[in-house]
Every structure is written in structure tokens, then in C-alpha cells.
């Protein structure tokens, strides 16, 4: 019966269960078993798509944190957009990157921004990057196995200086100095690891990030579009650049006229 089923979901509801709320409103009442099944289907679908479209990276260096990402969204073999914002501004001194499911990342980053602001209001001080990443990680852990697909890096500057955490929908959370997430990440890691020095200037670091994203988009079909680079310093984040990777290609590898070895000549008219 409807009322008793509604009671069951109300009892089982956790904070943040807005997904299920909208399904109830539509009038079709899937049983809890069906919701689980939908979840596991989307897990399979996401397993196929999850690593398929991102090249995002972030690293800490002397002056702060650099965050960079491409802007392509793909659905299988179809490029659905070349202008997706994959770097999400949580608040003026914290950024999150988006990899995996676009809706999941956008929603949960927005949700994280709300929780961070509430923390500020309740405690009269800004939340640390450690705290913000732990908030997100705990939320994602509670939704484990239900098909969320989020692979994000939380980068920011707090009282302890620059902070960078990798958080994913498996519930994993890692503190580190260099991360790259997405299908293009192995290519980006290579360039990033090789060119990284702790004591770079902001411009050198931005150029390294731009180059790493470019190389990832060059080799990975699911990454492309515009390489955006952000810098997070003591005064908050600032967008450094947004360059089309096609144009970057010719900037890094300009066309050099090469001599033609063999030229096809028309056969002389008989």
C-alpha cells in the first residue's frame, strides 16, 4: 500500500536523498529492490563510461596549487560537448575538478560548497581543505555501490597552506602533492612527473599543467576542447588561461616545411 511504502522510504532516507525524492514525486513507486537494480545498472553503464572522458590534473608547488582540465564530454564515440566546465569553484579559495559522471560531480560539489559555507557560519572560520575533502568523502562513501561516479580533486589554500586531496566515489581519499584523474591521466602523469619541480614560478607551473593537458588530449580520444588552468594562492583561486588544444598543438609543434621527396607528375599527354 502506498502510505506504508512511503513510510518505509521515509525511515530509510538519509540527508541528501534528493534523488529518490524526485522519483517519488513522479508517481511511479519503484520498490527498494528496483532502486538497487537501477543503481547497479548505472554502475555497469558508468564502469564503461567512467574513465572515458576526462583529463584533469592538480599539483602543489612552492607558490600554491595549480589545477588544470580539458573540456570535452563524450558519450561512447560521440563528442557531446567541447566546452564543459570541469573545474568547479566551490568557494573563493577552493576548487574541485570533475571526472566521471558530470551530473554527480556538479551536484555533489555544489552540495559541498553549501556545507562549507554552513561550516563557516557555524564556526566563524573557513573550513580547511582536509575538512572539506573529508565531508565529501564521507558522503560519497555512504552512497557506495549505488552507482555514483565521481573522481575529483579538492584543491585549496587554508591556514596550513596549500592542500590537495583526491576523492572518489569508491570512498577513497588520498592526500598528495600531484594527482591526475581521468582517461587521459596516464598521458598527463608522464609529462607532469617529468617536468615537475617544487620550486617553480607560477608561470612555469601553469605552462607545465597546460602542456600535460595538451599531451593527454593529443593521445586520448575522449579528452580535448579547451585546456583550462587555474592557480590557487593565498588570496584564493585565479583562472590563468584557457587555450584550445588544437591551437596549442601548432604552437608547440609548428608546421615545418619539408622538402617533397617524390612528386607526382601528370603523365605527358600522348
Amino acid at each position, binding site marked *: 500500500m502506498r502510505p506504508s511504502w512511503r513510510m518505509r522510504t521515509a525511515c530509510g532516507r538519509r540527508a541528501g536523498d534528493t534523488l529518490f525524492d524526485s522519483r517519488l514525486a513522479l508517481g511511479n513507486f519503484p520498490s527498494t529492490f528496483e532502486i538497487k537494480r537501477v543503481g547497479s545498472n548505472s554502475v555497469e553503464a558508468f564502469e564503461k563510461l567512467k574513465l572515458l572522458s576526462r583529463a584533469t590534473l592538480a599539483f602543489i608547488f612552492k607558490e600554491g596549487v595549480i589545477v588544470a582540465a580539458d573540456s570535452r564530454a563524450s558519450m561512447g564515440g560521440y563528442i557531446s560537448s567541447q566546452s564543459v566546465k570541469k573545474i568547479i569553484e566551490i568557494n573563493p579559495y577552493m576548487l574541485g575538478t570533475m571526472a566521471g559522471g558530470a551530473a554527480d560531480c556538479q551536484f555533489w560539489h555544489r552540495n559541498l560548497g553549501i556545507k562549507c559555507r554552513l561550516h563557516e557560519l557555524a564556526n566563524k572560520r573557513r573550513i580547511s581543505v582536509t575538512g572539506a575533502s573529508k565531508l565529501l568523502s564521507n558522503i560519497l*562513501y555512504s552512497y557506495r555501490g549505488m552507482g555514483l561516479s565521481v573522481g575529483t580533486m579538492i584543491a585549496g589554500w587554508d591556514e596550513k*597552506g596549500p592542500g590537495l586531496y583526491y576523492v572518489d566515489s*569508491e*570512498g*577513497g*581519499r588520498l592526500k*598528495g*602533492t*600531484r594527482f591526475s584523474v581521468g582517461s587521459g*591521466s596516464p598521458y598527463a602523469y608522464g609529462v607532469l612527473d617529468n617536468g615537475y619541480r617544487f620550486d617553480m614560478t607560477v608561470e612555469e607551473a601553469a605552462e607545465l599543467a597546460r602542456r600535460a593537458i595538451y599531451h593527454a588530449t593529443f593521445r586520448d580520444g575522449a579528452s580535448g576542447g579547451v585546456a583550462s588552468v587555474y592557480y590557487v594562492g593565498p588570496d584564493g583561486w585565479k583562472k590563468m588561461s584557457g587555450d584550445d588544444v588544437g591551437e596549442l598543438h601548432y604552437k608547440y609543434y609548428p608546421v615545418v616545411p619539408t622538402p617533397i621527396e617524390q612528386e607526382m607528375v601528370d603523365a605527358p599527354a600522348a
Partner: protein
Amino acid sequence: MECVFGLVGDGFALVAADSSAVNSILVHKSNEDKIMILDSHKLLGASGEAGDRVQFTEYIQKNVHLYEFRNGIPLSTAAAANFTRGELAQALRKSPYSVNILLAGYDKDIGPSLYYIDYIATLHKVDKGAFGYGSFFSLSMMDRHYHSGMSLKEAVDLVDKCIVEIRTRLVVSPPNFVIKIVDKDGAKEYAWRETIKDAEEPTA
């Protein structure tokens, strides 16, 4: 490819674990500390799925601390091990935690002890134990060379032998290991065995 192993020596217990955080073929981090210091005289070495490992071990740590705050005395190693196993068992038929744990501790009256707790809530008090693919190599090494009452130097030599064997024979062996010991003076980090040095995290 995660390796955790441990053994009991003369007046101390030792746990060693690899320190790589991996996602399919990508190594995200090579200096991840997987041996949690549960309280002043307990170590919890854990291997398993990313979220589960951290969440479950932190949960156990907070509950151990809570007991100490509430009752004024710390839990014994046996009690902590049984509590951990109980939590794993409770969750087993609902949403199991896939974490394998080696819990090492020192009690004033009993001395050092090591508990083997696997992901389906098996609990054994052991002298030596290992988890992961590395266990195929470290268990026989420990069986061959272990004897009760090993000194710290002998024990660390044995651990190094196991690490060398893992590095030689395991196809995707982890590059770095961390070794922690617990003795009458408390739980502390003993050493790292690194082949790849990650960039140091900058201090403010």
C-alpha cells in the same frame, strides 16, 4: 597487490605494509600509510578497498579512544581485536567491509601479541601473519626463519628478506614499504623501505 605482514618478537610486535595507493593501472601515491596507530600501544595494519580501509580503521580507532575516555583505562589488545572482529561480523551479512587487518599490541601483563582478522571476520591470535599477494612469499619466508623471541634486529632482517622476496617475485610489486613496531614504550614508526621517493609534501 597490497601486502601486509607482521610478527611477534621478544617484547615487541612488528607490522609491515606496502604504501602504494593504486587505481587499476595507475599508481596515485607511493607513500600512503596503511598502518594506523590505534592508541599508545596498538597498531592496526589494514589492506583492502580504498574507502573501506580508511573508514573502517578510523571507526575502530575512534571507538577505542571513546572506551578509554569513558572508562579511564585503555582497551587490552585482545579486547580491541575482538571488538574489531565483532564489527566486521555485524556488517558481514549486510554491507561487508572488505578490509584485512593485522592488529598488533603490547599489554603490560601479557606482552606483545598479534591478531589476524580477515574480511569475513575470522579472528586468530598468531605469532606471524600476512595478507595479500605478498603473503605467498612472506609466509614461507617467515615460516622458515621465524623463531619465538626474535630480537628487533633479527625481526627487521626477516622483514627485509620478505620485502626483497616480494620485490623479486611479485609481478606488480609495490615499490615502498613502511615498518612500524609496538613495544613497552609504545607504538611508533620504525622505518620506510623505499625504492621510489615521492615528492615530499610541503610543510607550511
